[in-house]
């Protein structure tokens, strides 16, 4: 069982990496790229019951894995 966590910069935060990747994609000829956001992906291997892990992973995301001032997160446990 794994928790799969995706962390992305909040909309209000400058994302110069995303902007640079977007420009590169445009230079490669990919038309219609509206925006790119560069974030992080974490996989945490777990044992035990998925439902009991859910609030703990949420807490860990809030306290350590993401910074709520600048980042949003969402995760699945499967």
């Amino acid at each position, binding site marked *: 069982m794994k928790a799969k966590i995706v962390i992305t910069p909040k909309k*209000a935060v*400058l994302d110069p990496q995303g902007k640079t990747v977007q420009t590169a994609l445009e230079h490669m000829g990919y038309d219609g790229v509206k925006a790119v956001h560069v974030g992080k992906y974490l996989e945490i291997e777990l044992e035990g019951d998925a439902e009991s892990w859910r609030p703990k992973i949420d807490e860990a995301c809030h306290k350590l894995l993401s*910074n709520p001032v*600048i980042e949003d997160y969402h995760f699945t446990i499967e």
Partner: protein
Amino acid sequence: MRFAVLQFPGSNCDQDCVHVLSNVLGQDADYLWHKEESIGDADAVVVPGGFSYGDYLRTGSIAQFSPVMNAVKAFANAGGLVIGICNGFQILCETGLLPGALVRNRSLQFRCETIYLKVPTTDSPFTSEVPEGKLLRVPIAHGEGCYFAADEALAKLRANDQIIFQYATETGELTDEANPNGSLLNIAGICNEGRNVCGMMPHPERASENVLGVDDGRLVFESMLRHLEAKTGVGQAVTAEA
């Protein structure tokens, strides 16, 4: 006065801070390993620059959970003087002792240069000795120094005069060109609402001796010293004798 200079795995400005505090300013300065659970009898704490825990996950994110940080939080919440420089600023934001966060420089480049700092208020234990209107020349060296805070937090910083250092031109103007990292409001350093905790990206400890070309950074440490002396009465005693 006794300063505790924290050391995390990856700190690299700790020795510079101890050097300036002890050899230049004649104070007691001790290294304090991050696994310690007490800051002992220190009068002030310095969270130095570097790359604590290799900047893994986010700058300062792992260091906030080092045992010593619980002691630093308790010390700060009781009114103790704490300054975080560069990575130290990032750590203090992650611990929640200071509002906001520091993100990747807008240019995506690591910026290493000497800049000018405007000091918008001398009403803080970190800027009290800066002559009114004086710009400080101090080096920066960081890749993640772009200060961000949500609108509400930013408004609060302004309302309470908590912005204590801003990137400026050599004539003191706050322009985009003078802003090396994209920080909101050209913010280079702030203090907390209680004014006893400061975080700044520039390195005053690298600019505290004339032999290094500039000693404006001394004013930051001297401000802290005057504040501590006033608090303990040591300064008055010396002045009275003189």
